[in-house]
């Protein structure tokens, strides 16, 4: 059974059909890419899966149960974590706190227990600190753990956002333009990182990205959106040679 199935997903904003009849089935451990020109509706697909928008039509099933229209925090708890196209870290929290907070939704301590620091909370706090530290090590940020998140350079902020998403214990990771603003080296490191994380945490990854070299190298399958409509899907090789995709999108990328 697929981990995530999306059927006939449609999102209308007033008269604008941002996403039209979108289908998707993600198998466990896959890395699948969603590409297309700006404004094609890619982020809107993420927003529907992650619970930020209630789809106008269509079904979303995660591990067999319907999640369409559920609240975002419930969906995160169910096992889908995301990052944002425009990085959204908690600016006044330190780097490690930004990750620790990802564990908060999983603790069993009540707020009274946490305030009074009952033994359960102390154990859970220790778990949060250690878990966050491990994740920071995993993404290569352990040496800046105590710094403010906004003082980090762009590439590191992107990694921090991934670490924060992982802290929620996801099975499915949605990455919205993870390589945006990165140079070639950073992008290559990111690619290795995502592959490593998939292995270590048994993840399934669904990502949006404009960097075609990155996408073609990391993704096993691709879906191409244009004006909300799926115009192609297949392996990177098939997509690269699809005339419709070249016309609508890749031509533009190559010219740029």
């Amino acid at each position, binding site marked *: 059974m697929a981990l995530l199935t999306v059927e006939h997903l449609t999102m209308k904003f007033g008269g604008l059909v941002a996403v039209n009849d979108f289908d998707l089935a993600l198998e466990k451990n896959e890395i699948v890419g969603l590409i297309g020109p700006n404004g094609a509706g890619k982020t809107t697909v993420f927003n529907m899966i992650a619970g930020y928008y209630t789809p106008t039509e269509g079904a979303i099933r995660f591990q067999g149960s319907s999640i369409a229209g559920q609240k975002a925090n419930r969906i995160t708890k169910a096992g889908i974590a995301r990052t944002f196209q425009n990085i959204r870290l908690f600016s006044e929290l330190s780097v490690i706190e930004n990750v620790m907070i*990802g564990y908060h939704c999983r603790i069993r301590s009540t707020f009274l227990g946490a*305030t009074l620091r009952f033994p359960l909370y102390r154990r859970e706090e220790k778990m949060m600190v250690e878990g966050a530290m491990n994740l920071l090590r995993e993404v290569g940020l352990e040496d800046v753990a105590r710094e403010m998140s906004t003082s980090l350079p762009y590439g590191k902020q992107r990694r921090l956002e991934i670490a924060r998403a992982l802290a929620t214990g996801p099975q499915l990771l949605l990455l919205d333009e993870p390589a945006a603003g990165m140079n070639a080296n950073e992008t290559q490191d990111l690619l290795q990182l995502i592959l490593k994380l998939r292995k270590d945490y048994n993840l399934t990854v669904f990502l949006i990205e404009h960097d075609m070299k990155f996408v073609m190298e990391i993704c096993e399958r691709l879906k191409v959106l244009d004006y909300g409509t799926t115009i192609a899907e297949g392996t990177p090789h098939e997509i690269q040679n699809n005339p419709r995709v070249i016309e609508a999108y890749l031509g533009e990328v190559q010219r740029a």
Partner: protein
Amino acid sequence: MDPNHLRNQILSIAGTVVLLALLYVANTQGSDYTIRILNNIAIFIILAVSYNLINGVTGQFSLAPNAFVAIGSYTSALLTLTPMEKEISFIIEPCIWPLSVITLPFIVSLVAAGVVAALLALLMGFPVFRTRGDYLAIVTLGFGEVVRVIANNTQSITNGPLGLKGIADFTNIWWAWGFAIITVFLIGRMIRSSYGMAMKAVKFDQAAAEAVGINTYWHKMLAFTTSAFFQGVGGGLLAHLITTISPVLFTFFLTFNLLIIIVAGGLGSTTGAIIAAILFTWGGEALRFVEEPMDLGFIDIPGIPGMRMVIFSVILVLIMIFARQGLMGTREFNWNWVCRKLGIGGRS
């Protein structure tokens, strides 16, 4: 996590002991006037620190502290007044049963004051936070007025505009400061726990908070209700300090004063709220002279009531223009910083 944790804990306990010793000295040597100001300071610390929890830490703009303080004041006063005192006070309509026959110990009345305020916060928060937090300011502002109107018109419960008189003066320096210390300790711990971190996350970026699985609705409710609880307790202490309460005491001015305090202290900083509460209460007393008639030799200025509010408003405006972060920004007092400044090394 912090290698100086034990040292800092000892310093905190030592600091509290020093504070208590100073209060003891003030209580035995100080004038009634000094003691009164100290009591006021303690109550304002309770109100400001709890107000900061919802407005500063969680970023939800509530305008209801006057309502919660009013509810706390009335609740605890009605619970400690003896049946006889109630019979004397309620001259227009008798007090309703069972309030008319109940008398409870002070501490029970304070807890009840907090609980009633918290329950009302729960009732109000439910519809407001379910939709969008944006309406909180409007709804809480309206709620403050509703509470005042009710206090004015439910003659048989609140004694209407006459208010309640002859409330026992139970609030002394130990009750007031005892609760101030408990409030700061508990709210401080709450803010430092992962629940507090989640509340900050809600303030910084609600969508990102949801993305990390935080139930933003529940955390807003938590902050709002906790804040109301302590404001209710503060109200109870206030009633038993001034011994006479009436609806006019709890106008929007009270909320406005608290708003000035938490903004001046730095929204989100408990330390800032405490410092500003002290400055404001003490400054309010020190500035009393500006409302009295003055003879400057060449000119006679008549007393202008409300002049202090004007001064405080000007201060607030100046802060908003020149020091938006307030005294502390979102920083907190911490022993590591103090020790570093004093040149006492610690492990790091």
